[in-house]
């Protein structure tokens, strides 16, 4: 297991290296990167020249890339000119809020999808199945930002049960987490349903039933546990989607997470923050995918990584 983990972490290195190259190129897509990293329209030509020299943009591109890599390994992702602080700590400071939102959304999704997925698979073609299947098709088509606005309209404006936006108390988390969670829940319900349908037909299920086990034990111990393996795989692939959704949902509900910070940074052309954010998102996605792989061994002890 340790060797497998070590190998997986090593495999992240080329991906991260490529990411540095992509970010390095993207910042220079419009020629002089100085315009992306400093408020050039507010500066005199001399000041621009000074900053350009300070960043090393007057040097050969290859040297700049090596410098850029060197800075990254020291954890230096540039300085935000808007906050006049290093960019990385600013992003990391907002990270817990985004993770909180994503975590609760995932929780909501599982709590909704697990019973629904099982019930719709067991009672195939029932009314519940029809309703849940229709809902999951609709869930695929509903853009999260619109769903968020509609939830605000119903629960905050019309019913006045919940606040429109903000992040002071747990109540503020309900609508954003529900918005993000619903999209995820529809996909998850579909996955669990089809995986359960596959498993229900297996011989060991009949064996388990013929042993006289209760329907409940058969479904949960023998069925669900096996059905979850492919579900977890596909769910792992959704982490990038989930975090992307969080960026949008944060905007709808004025949730002070990383996404909101990055969107603001794009508007003020504060690209140091954007590049730091891109790296943090990539690290989270890679970390979670690794966690999912490790989770397999718990769900299916036959899977061993050595």
């Amino acid at each position, binding site marked *: 297991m340790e060797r497998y983990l070590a190998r997986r972490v090593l495999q992240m290195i080329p991906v991260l290296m*490529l990411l540095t190259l992509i970010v390095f190129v993207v910042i220079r*897509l*419009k020629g002089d990167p100085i315009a992306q990293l400093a408020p050039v329209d507010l500066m005199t030509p001399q000041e621009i020249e000074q900053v350009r020299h300070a960043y090393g943009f007057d040097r050969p591109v290859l040297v700049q890339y090596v410098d850029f890599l060197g800075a990254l390994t020291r954890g230096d992702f540039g300085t935000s000119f808007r906050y006049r602080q290093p960019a990385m700590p600013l992003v990391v400071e907002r990270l817990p809020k985004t993770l909180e939102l994503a975590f609760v959304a995932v929780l909501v999704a599982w709590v909704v999808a697990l019973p629904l997925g099982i019930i719709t698979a067991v009672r195939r073609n029932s009314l519940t199945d029809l309703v849940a299947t229709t809902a999951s098709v609709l869930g695929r*088509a509903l*853009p999260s930002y619109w769903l968020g606005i509609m939830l605000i309209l119903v629960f905050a*404006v019309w019913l006045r049960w919940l606040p429109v936006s903000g992040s002071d108390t747990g109540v503020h988390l309900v609508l954003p987490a529900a918005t993000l969670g619903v999209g995820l829940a529809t996909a998850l319900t579909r996955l669990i349903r089809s995986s359960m349908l596959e498993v229900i037909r297996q011989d060991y299920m009949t064996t388990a039933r013929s042993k006289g086990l209760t329907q409940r034990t058969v479904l949960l111990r023998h069925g669900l546990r096996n059905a979850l393996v492919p579900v977890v795989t596909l769910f792992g692939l959704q982490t990038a989607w989930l975090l992307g959704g969080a960026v949008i949902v944060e905007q709808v509900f004025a949730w002070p997470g990383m996404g909101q910070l990055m969107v603001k940074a794009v508007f003020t052309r504060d690209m140091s923050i954007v590049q730091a954010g891109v790296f943090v*998102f*990539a690290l989270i*996605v890679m970390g979670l995918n690794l966690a999912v792989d490790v989770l397999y061994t718990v769900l299916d002890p036959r899977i061993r990584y050595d």
Partner: protein
Amino acid sequence: MAVPAPPRRARTLARRLLRSPVGMVGAVIVAVVLCIAVAAPLLARHDPTQVAFDRPLRPPAWISGGAWAFALGTDSLGRDVLSRVIYGSRVSVIVGVCAVSVASMIGVSVGLLAGYFGGTLDAIIGRVVDTVLSVPFIVLALAVVGVLGPSLVNLIVVLGAVGWVSYARVVRGDVLSVRTREYVQAAAAIGQTERWIILRHILPNVAPSVIVLATLDVATVIIAESALSFLGLGVQPPTVTWGSMLADGRQYVATAWWLAVAPGMAITITVLGIIFFGDWLRDVLDPRLR
């Protein structure tokens, strides 16, 4: 250079579509949205950008205070919401079709090369795909639009440049299985060039999965485009987009709910139509993808 489908096959497809209610609904929705986008100037009763301060925030016609001249009401600047929804379809259709074309062209080429030649090239492409997939789509698009600046062309380029990876993956997988078949081996044995083999023998075989993927991808791109517009990073005013209408609607959600409902419905119905049609297409052309 896919082989054009013989007419008989097209007719069989059309007949199968008529027998599938869901696929049919999808096809009708897609056709209607396309017609609306093309015929927007004929359908809209008002100029979508015409500001009129004497009629701000009028409710839809069926609510007291509304009028059928402004069937879906007016926004804070007195602009007709229905006309804006009609014109908004244009950006979604253009970006959807163009970005998917860009993405599929890049993705199919890269996938063909990676799958056919394998080796180091495949390994490098694999790492690039992993890298692009490790960053949320919208975050990457955000970063690139941030640098390039928001415009219709940049939006298409960005969504295409970020979206190609799924095509590359699918095509690479298909090529790996197709290239071991006898007719490909035979073509190589009689000395046909690699270029000929790829274009004439392999490409037609990966085309069905690409067509299915591209159809469903239009839905993804339309959602991504309106998300960027919603964030203020899409096509800029005065061009009307559904996403920017939603951003306006978000501000007036407490006082004028119809501003957010109308464009959201437009996006959802369009996307639903594409999904219905795409799912049907997948069942017919490429049942393996289920």
